[in-house]
């Protein structure tokens, strides 16, 4: 369960986020849409503990973002907008490298299954020769290595083809619905985000606002 209360973020004198309040339950996918510079990435980075808020309170499963930061990081999976993988490694080497760093130890087969679950089949292939979509999938797979309960994805499908987008979307839904993971997701693609998410917030600036835009009362699977 995520509780965000009165969240504010300022860069020097400039207010980027103001009085943000919302909640998330396990198994829920929340989307964020908005123009560039509206504060989507900032909000995600605050929730990912990459940044600290100027004001406000965040609690994740009753853990405080101020005092329990190490414990929180263990249950967060953050997929940054930039692809953070080793270009000179193969898919296998990337997975094994980050598995060794991870809290959760997995066998090579488990790492491979994680990739196969999201249709990333080029296990032995060098990352430099992968398509953008495959790199995005690997970027996501690495963030899932420690089996996080709360997944934050910053534009995970930017610049990739429709098939890969649909595969990633479908995989995220299965993670939320089958494994009860909370997922927060940003995108510029309205169609994609309304298809994948249970709730979609619109975020904007001058003045700052965060409005509930879409709430799929009917399960997304039935909408399709």
């Amino acid at each position: 369960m995520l509780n965000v209360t009165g969240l504010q973020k300022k860069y020097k004198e400039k207010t980027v986020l103001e009085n943000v309040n919302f909640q998330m339950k396990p198994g829920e996918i929340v989307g964020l849409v908005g123009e560039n510079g509206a504060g989507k990435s900032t909000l995600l980075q605050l929730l990912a503990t990459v940044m600290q808020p100027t004001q406000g309170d965040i609690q994740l499963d009753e853990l405080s973002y101020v005092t329990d930061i190490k414990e929180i990081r263990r249950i967060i999976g953050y997929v940054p907008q930039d692809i953070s993988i080793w270009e000179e490694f193969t898919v296998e080497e990337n997975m094994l490298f980050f598995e060794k760093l991870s809290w959760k130890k997995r066998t090579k087969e488990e790492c491979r299954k994680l990739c196969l679950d999201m249709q990333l089949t080029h296990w032995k292939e060098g990352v430099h020769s992968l398509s953008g979509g495959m790199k995005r999938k690997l970027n996501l797979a690495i963030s899932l290595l420690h089996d996080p309960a709360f997944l934050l994805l910053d534009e995970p499908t930017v610049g990739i083809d429709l098939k890969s987008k649909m595969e990633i979307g479908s995989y995220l839904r299965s993670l939320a619905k089958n494994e009860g993971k909370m997922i927060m997701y940003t995108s510029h693609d309205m169609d994609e985000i309304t298809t994948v998410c249970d709730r979609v917030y619109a975020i904007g600036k001058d003045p700052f606002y965060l409005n509930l835009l879409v709430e799929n009362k009917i399960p997304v699977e039935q909408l399709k």
Partner: protein
Amino acid sequence: MKNILFIRWMRLKKEWRSHICWMLLPIVMTVLIMQGVETWQAETKVPIALVVEEQTEMAARLVDDIASTELLHTQLMPLDEALHRLQQHELDSVFVIREGYEGNILANRRNQLIDAYSSNRSFAYQAVVETITSYAQQDAARSKAAFVIKQLFSDYDMEDEWSYEEIIERSRERQKSEALLQSSFNYYDKDNTTEEQVLPLLKAWGVWAFFAIITTFFLFDWMLKENRPSMRQRWLFTEISYEKYASGSLLFFTVIIFFMDLVTAFIFSSLFQEALTIRVLISLFSFRLTINLLAFLLASVNKQLFMYYIYSLGIALLLIVIGGSIIPLYGLTGKWPWIEELSPVQSLLNGTIPLIWLFILAVLFARWVQKGGKVNA
């Protein structure tokens, strides 16, 4: 630690070629430069030819004296060949030790002992003539002194006391043991250190240190590559923090590079007759630790690879210059001994441990580790 070593090994496997190059470069460059300088020094000696017409002990000694003169490259050859090569300007000058050299010296005749030939390009002729004349004068003076002593023995009826040869031999021994042209001073109650030391143009460890510092900085660029902004966020969500990984990697690199340093010490010992003692190895290890810590900390405060390389080159040059490995600092260190502490290179050359450097770097490293655990991204 096992996991850190495993992933460090994974990274190393991808860059082993460049790493091997950087680790071998200091040895290769030092050997090339030292041998180049040696060749250059040999080629810059003044080439002269000696034509020895007389086969006596005194003539042979004169040849030895001339041949052992550091700035002369002396070759023995027949007169015809010597003059031909002089005409071709392959030789600066030609000297002929004429038949009757010893006889003339013994007879106290000092003229026409040696014939000399020069060409219009004999730039060092006057200096070489002075040198060779001084050797002949030495023989003549020694011989005359021996005769005077013999005369004194004769005057005091002690003719059987010493022979002419014994006096000459004793005179040579005295010359060697007392170094008559050298004066040395020493402070009261201090050890007398009059042993003459020939200072080499370049020191092998000094040249090596320059390349070792630069290549160490290049080897440590992984600090920036593996902690680039996009990757930095990954390290927040890992059990092994970046600080632990980087510290483990520092240890890993120190072990690997020090192994190469040991190989270097063995090579230098066999090629350049450098000492290979426990003291040298301890000094080498402390130098390695200092340079690795310096490269590590410099990389940790830089965000741009290009700027890191620029700073690295600047620091390497500075350490080498104030370390006295290229420009000797004997005069300065005599006046201000603290200058020796400014560069770990000086400690390496002196076979000591750069304690101040190590202490400061260890404190900064501890602070980095402590701070790294607290900072956010």
